[in-house]
């Protein structure tokens, strides 16, 4: 088990192994890992069983046979991905084989023309399927089963009537021979064509609008149609493509073999379906990739071909193919059903966190001793605010707060009874700060760093930073911007509480305690966002020191505050400001007398500290019991602390009976009053600070006093 011992400056700067597994499984390419492994193992087995299996000669011959089947696999794969199935591929293949040879040998059509005509005929047959399944929405399984029989019947009739005409003829124009036996750069022609098709198919599926539509229709036809995608036409198009691809494969086959028979293309549908499902293309539609289809085709090819070479009888080979198909379908069903569960259970990976000894709150002489100073708080906006995480006041004394509905509300001075919606960023606004020009800058959870002009217009500052190179999971999108402060030069320092979880999952980050938080810096001059610190245990409140030379950043789960120097001789270094708080600190802000206010949102308990030391226990707890039953940090009690420039606790304000402020997430001093917010509260509190400077406000402290006429009337 990995360990984050309490060493404030030795941050986790590498991935936790279990975390890597969890994050890897969440990658889109993780789905291909299983087919890939199966492919490698299969090839290894047959290569060891058969001598000379990997020789150039044998590989060349394999490639010849493989490519035609593989093209049909692509056809089938695309149809399965769009949510259908095409059982008539074998019959179309047989019919096209006959037609191509008949055109060339009996009717003496030029090879080029014959190829085009045959492919067109294949597309036509596909269109029949497409019309019935895609447009008329008949069941693909039944429809293609029927067309399979019909097309096969046509082949039989044609063979009966014209078969003899083809028996003796042969074609040996250079183009025809090139198609059948030629090679480019050592690769057989048909392999080149297949590779071309595979790359084209990959580009189609992953890089084009049509590909996205195919996947969408396969995923949910109804949802796709509601999103304005012509689902019927898309599905029909894929059937047409499937028919054309089958015909093309048949042409290549014809050019190589040059004969017709009743068994051409027989059971081909089962073979390719096996390849498709084995490659992990889901029978339900909407999931799969070209690469996986190719891997599936390889496995089936190697197995069937290998068994023939081992001298195993035909019947047994067919049985084996059937068994593999059954197994693949079973796996497909189970994988789809349990995939998310598996991902969820591997994503969260708690880390051992050893906290320093818990400061004793119950001791009367403790600097944190409980009192009842918040008892007589004045209540503002009772039941008019839902979770005022942070509060701030403008120069005119109006009160701003972000709430759960995704709005920034404004309560108007002087009595704060009138409420209005100031701005509606959409995500949940957390930290708030005014810049030099009285723009309200805010960290919006789920969105990033935004600003609101005094007239309420919203503008985006940044929503991404540089990706951390050693993290598998892309952490460049700012997932949970939390709090900010602004340096005199305009740089905005803001915290990203965690790069792995959204705001609603804060507790999961707490139970993981892997140091997922960052301190970021947005520079308006360059419009770049850089990572200043990472590995923070829930980076929360951010505050610029009074001298403007350092940034204080709170680590909630670490119960500590760090000081990071941004100017002066220690620039770029970090040191502890407060090392061991008795609770989970939240926001930190300037006080009028050159000190700081810190909101303590919850209290550490002996049990919580023990839980932090037991990562295995936390992992099992998260998996086995519901969230409402988990051991949580005690956020039903909290207080406000005042600390001086050295981090010494000067004073604490408690709400002993949790009447108004069971948990405090922010406080803001303004003109002799302290305004109090709480993430889960339904009110804002205000308390008079008798000893405070009654003229002091944050704006003046940061940006200097301004003539009265500049402030709002």
């Amino acid at each position: 088990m990995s360990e984050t011992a309490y060493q404030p400056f030795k941050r986790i700067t590498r991935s936790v192994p279990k975390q890597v597994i969890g994050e890897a499984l969440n990658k889109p390419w993780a789905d291909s890992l299983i087919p890939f492994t199966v492919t490698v193992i299969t090839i290894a087995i047959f290569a060891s069983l058969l001598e000379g299996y990997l020789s150039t000669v044998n590989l060349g011959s394999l490639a010849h046979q493989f490519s035609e089947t593989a093209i049909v696999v692509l056809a089938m794969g695309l149809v399965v991905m769009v949510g259908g199935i095409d059982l008539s591929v074998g019959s179309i293949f047989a019919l096209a084989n006959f037609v191509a040879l008949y055109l060339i040998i009996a009717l003496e059509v030029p090879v080029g023309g014959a190829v085009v005509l045959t492919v067109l005929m294949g597309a036509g047959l596909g269109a029949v399927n497409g019309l019935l399944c895609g447009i008329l929405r008949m069941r693909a399984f039944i429809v293609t089963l029927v067309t399979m029989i019909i097309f096969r019947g046509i082949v039989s009739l044609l063979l009966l009537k014209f078969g003899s005409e083809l028996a003796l003829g042969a074609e040996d124009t250079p183009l025809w021979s090139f198609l059948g036996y030629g090679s480019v750069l050592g690769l057989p022609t048909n392999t080149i064509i297949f590779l071309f098709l595979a790359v084209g198919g990959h580009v189609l599926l992953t890089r084009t609008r049509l590909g996205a539509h195919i996947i969408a229709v396969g995923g949910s036809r109804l949802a796709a149609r509601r999103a304005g995608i012509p689902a019927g036409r898309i599905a029909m198009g894929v059937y047409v493509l499937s028919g054309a691809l089958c015909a093309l494969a048949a042409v290549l086959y014809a050019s190589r073999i040059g004969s017709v028979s009743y068994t051409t293309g027989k059971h081909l549908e089962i073979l390719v379906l096996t390849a498709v499902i084995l490659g992990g293309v889901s029978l339900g539609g909407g999931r799969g990739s070209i690469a996986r289809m190719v891997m599936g085709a390889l496995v089936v090819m190697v197995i069937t071909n290998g068994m023939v070479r081992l001298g195993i009888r035909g019947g047994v080979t067919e049985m084996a193919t059937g068994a593999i198909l059954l197994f693949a379908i079973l796996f497909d069903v189970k994988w789809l059903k349990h995939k998310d569960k598996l991902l969820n259970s591997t994503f969260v990976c708690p880390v051992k966190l050893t906290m320093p000894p818990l400061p004793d709150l119950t001791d009367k002489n403790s600097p944190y001793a409980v009192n009842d100073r918040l008892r007589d708080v004045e209540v503002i906006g009772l039941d008019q605010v839902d979770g005022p995480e942070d509060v701030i006041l403008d120069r005119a004394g109006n009160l701003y707060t972000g709430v759960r509905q995704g709005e920034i509300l404004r309560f108007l001075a002087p009595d704060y009874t009138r409420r209005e919606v100031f701005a509606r960023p959409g995500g949940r606004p957390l930290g708030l700060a005014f810049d030099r020009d009285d723009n309200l800058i805010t960290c919006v959870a789920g969105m990033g760093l935004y600003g609101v002009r005094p007239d309420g217009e919203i503008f985006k500052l940044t929503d991404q930073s540089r990706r951390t190179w050693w993290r598998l999971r892309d952490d460049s999108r700012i997932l949970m911007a939390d709090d900010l402060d602004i340096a005199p030069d305009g740089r905005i320092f803001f915290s990203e509480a965690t790069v792995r979880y959204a705001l609603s999952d804060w507790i999961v980050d707490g139970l993981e305690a892997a140091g997922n938080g960052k301190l970021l810096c947005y520079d308006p001059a360059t419009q770049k966002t850089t990572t200043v610190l990472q590995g923070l245990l829930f980076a929360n409140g951010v505050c610029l020191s009074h001298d403007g030379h350092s940034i204080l950043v709170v680590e909630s789960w670490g119960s500590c505050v760090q000081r990071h120097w941004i100017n002066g001789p220690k620039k770029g270094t970090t040191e502890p400001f407060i090392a061991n708080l008795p609770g989970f600190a939240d926001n930190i802000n300037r006080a009028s007398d050159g000190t700081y206010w810190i909101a303590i949102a919850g209290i550490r308990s002996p049990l919580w500290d023990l839980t932090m030391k037991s990562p295995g226990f936390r992992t099992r707890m998260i998996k086995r019991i519901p969230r409402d039953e988990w051991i949580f940090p005690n956020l039903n009690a909290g207080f406000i602390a005042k600390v001086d420039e050295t981090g010494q606790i000067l004073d604490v304000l408690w709400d002993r009976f949790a009447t108004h402020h069971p948990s405090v997430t922010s406080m803001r001093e303004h003109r002799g009053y302290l305004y109090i917010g709480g993430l889960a509260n339904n009110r804002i509190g205000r308390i008079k600070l008798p000893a405070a400077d009654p003229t002091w406000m944050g704006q003046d402290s940061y940006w200097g006093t301004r003539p009265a006429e500049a402030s709002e009337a």
Partner: protein
Amino acid sequence: MRNMLTEIIAEVLSPNREQNAIPPMDGAWTPNSLLEEAPRLSEGYQDPHDFCVGPNNVLFVADGVNVLRLFGKDWRSREVVATVEATVLGLAWHDQAGLLACIDGVGVRVIQGPMTGAAFLEANGATLLAPRAALVTGSDKLLVADGSRGIHGSDWVLDFMAKGRSGRVVAFDLATGKGREICTGLGYPSSLMLSQDGGTVFFPEAWRAQISSLPLAPGEGQQDKQTVVRNLPAYPWRLARGRQSLLVSFLSMRTQLMEFLLGEDAFRSDMMRQVPRDFWVAPAFRSRAHVYEPIQGGQLLQHGKAKAWAPSRSYGLLAELRPNFEVSRTFHARHGEEAHGIVAALEADGRRLALSAGAEALLDLGAL
């Protein structure tokens, strides 16, 4: 061995089955606030553990080391009748014997009445360390429920954490004071109740969340117990016979966290070593709302309010059972309320009464 095999087979056949999942609180178990709303007849108990009815409808209440007598209209008057050397865990009145007090770590003593001074202290070589209930049957026999063989009654939480199965029922000869075990290996028998015909004794096994029964045979040997009700949603604490129904009061709810923790031996022992006892994840008769008490997700205050359905450390629960042990009605005090930890309930003078450790009060649940 066979048990293990069937376990393994069941695991393979249905891996997601829940073993003794805590039953949902629905039907007759649907939560209400009847206990919280009940009038409080007398308050201010420090450490109440049990009460019983004496002659002329007086009540005896065990409160810490004191035994009080409640009398007068609505039992408004009270006086201390005895003070003993340790906490009184259980009380019983019998006309021929007198007032029997179960004393923590000592045994059972008659402290008032005809046999005052008689003591019943040990059986099969072991002192009654956790005597929780005494019951006189017939004219000459005293049954005592001893919760645990090694752990004092006031330390019951240690026995709970150890998943103790050393409880026993002991039979004493009233005349000679000689005792012998009649049933052992019990998961904390915390009270005793005689069947209507006097031939069977019922007792809750709290840690097993079940009610068991034992036939009272005249012979010498040990008897096999039978399970009467299993898998209750809370830890049953005391059984009492009413006029038409049975009353079961409960220590507190079983929670999923607690059940999970009982399977986490390493963490549990770490907790017992490193965390003060008051702040363990453990069932409790009352919560003191100390900031160090463990908090579960559902307990977080939203808009300053506690959710009534939140998992709760302590809980008030009293169930009324039909004679066939089917639940017919329940009384609750939910999370955020006070009347938790119903240590005992009974019927007296046509009223139903309950003693709550959380509210430190005697509750009046109304006329019958």
